[in-house]
């Protein structure tokens, strides 16, 4: 599958934009005056050596860490100081580098955690109006099941199995389903290939591309070390090193960039 190059993507208003974003941990600048734009509908690869600030960027965007200076806007609204809850409600959802599913809970339960904003959370509805609750439950179940089916049809028959017994690839899939079920506008994938074999990674990438094609307008940012994944799936890449953006462009372009080669491989 070839994707059209995203040379023209900057013509559109960016869906996510960071301006001069800075995050310090003690004396370490994890993110250093970062300017970054993600265009509507694109798949952006965020790469860089370990410790270059990729995950910190996700954590600042999603409100887990507060930024020290600079700003983040999403769809035009400032979300720099927004709480994780507010960021989620605005339409950003994410996966985690080390899979953070609730292991004793079922596949369905885990996906429903991601569906929080679309479920009726009132006490009266949940405890007393069981008929209405059952209707919401049934429609949510079918929706979750359909989503899992996109990734792995056999898995959709095991919705009430605890996640703890599943292999890593299935856990990743469920994590992505958990992030997608609320129909976000922006999906942040933090190293989806971590802990998986090469084949599994390829499968998962196909899944992600398929999901992107099914949900028009979904914007995705992927943090990834696996260059094959980045090459195949992204429209555009941003390379970070020591919290700064050192290169930006299509994969071919950044792969040829001397600074990027130095950051990854050391001086040659």
């Amino acid at each position, binding site marked *: 599958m070839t994707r059209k190059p995203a040379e023209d993507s900057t013509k559109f208003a960016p869906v996510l934009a960071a301006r001069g974003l800075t995050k310090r941990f003690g004396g370490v600048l994890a993110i250093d005056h970062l300017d970054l734009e993600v265009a509507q509908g694109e798949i952006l690869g965020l790469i860089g050596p370990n410790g270059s600030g990729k995950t910190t960027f996700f954590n600042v965007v999603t409100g887990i860490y507060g930024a020290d200076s600079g700003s983040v806007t999403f769809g035009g609204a400032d979300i720099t100081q927004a709480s994780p809850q507010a960021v989620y409600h605005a339409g950003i959802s994410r996966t985690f580098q080390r899979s953070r599913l609730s292991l004793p809970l079922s596949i369905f339960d885990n996906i429903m955690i991601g569906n929080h904003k679309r479920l009726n959370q009132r006490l009266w509805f949940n405890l007393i109006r069981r008929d209405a609750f059952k209707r919401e439950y049934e429609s949510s179940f079918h929706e979750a*099941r359909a989503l899992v089916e996109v990734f792995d049809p056999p898995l959709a028959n095991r919705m009430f199995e605890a996640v703890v017994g599943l292999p890593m690839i299935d856990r990743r899939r469920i994590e992505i389903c958990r992030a997608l079920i609320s129909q976000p506008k922006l999906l942040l994938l933090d190293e989806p290939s971590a802990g998986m074999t090469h084949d599994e990674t390829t499968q998962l990438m196909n899944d992600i591309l398929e999901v992107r094609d099914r949900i028009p307008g979904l914007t995705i940012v992927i943090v990834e070390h696996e260059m094959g994944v980045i090459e195949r799936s992204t429209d555009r890449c941003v390379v970070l090193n020591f919290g700064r953006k050192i290169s930006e462009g299509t994969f071919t372009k950044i792969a040829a960039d001397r600074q990027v080669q130095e950051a990854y491989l050391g001086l040659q």
Partner: protein
Amino acid sequence: MESILPGAVALALATAYLIVLLRVENQNTILALLGVGIAAVLVANWLGWLAPVGRSFGEREDVLGLLAIVAAIVVASYFHEDHFVLLLLCTVLLYTVATLGLNVQFGYAGVLNFAGASFFGIGAYTAAVLNQHTAIPHLIVLLIGGLMAALIGCLLLLPVLRTRGHYAAVVTIAFALLLKTFLEVNDVLGGPQGLQVRSMNVLGWSFNNNIEIGGLRLSFYTSYFATSLLILIGAFVLVRRLERSWIGLNLDALRLDETAAGCFGLNIVRWKVTAFLLGNFLIGIAGTLQGMVVGFVQPNNYTFADSLIFVSILLLGGIGNPWGVAVATVIVVIVPEKLQVIQEYRFLLYAALVMMVLLFRPEGLLPRPVRSYFPGWRP
């Protein structure tokens, strides 16, 4: 029908066993009975007979729940004249309610509460004061007792929300000690001697009189038993519905991973507070009625050690499983009462039991199954 059968048989056997155990007085016979009971469970487990029982409780909880109510009534009717046994049964029912409250807090939301007995006591003291000085109908006093426990529990909210894990536990332990000291030095609340609690009176019918129906004489504790059973049924249904709803899911999510839950919009404070208050409300209601059943309250009845009993019931039964809580309460309350040898060593017994469980069956006697929102529901 087939799936009901194993559960119904197990329930019937357990009921019969309980009646025999409560009936027998001879200490050696009781010891032998307990041995037989433990052996029977182990053998049944070894033969794989317990799995179908669990399945049938999982799938047909509606019917088996009704049967369990019938079983409780059968046991109570068998001992309708026996004050001591009925008092014991009331204690079992009310401790189950209190532990269900603790289960909402700790089992679901992961909020440790080592002051369970304090909130139980707050309920009982509410009963003592209100029944003495006001004419508030006693059924309403039950509600007020629950609300008082929840309200005073609010004092603990800030520290409980700001601390996690062990630290939160220490805060609740401190509260338990503070409350006991407060009760001891407070003369209005009777100081160390405590207060009398007027017995329950519903619509002019005093719970302190024995009941006589056409020559059949029932212990006055029968009324208390019936009330306790009704409260337990209410609490059980409430906790069950809570677990099998999005709210139960929220509580699990925040217990297992607060950060991830926050990233999916979950308001951590809201749900921790909900679980903590609801749990205390249940504990408080149980305590209020228990105060009226026993007839007096004193600080020494609601110590840290008593809180530990609730916690051990929860650990023993299976954290998060209401049926486990019920079974464990029966064991923890009845065994020491029947085995006088153990009486003085009961805390030793609890400690040993909890350690055995944590070592050999960390999820408790009846581990909590994966949530099914509507048992028996198929897509």
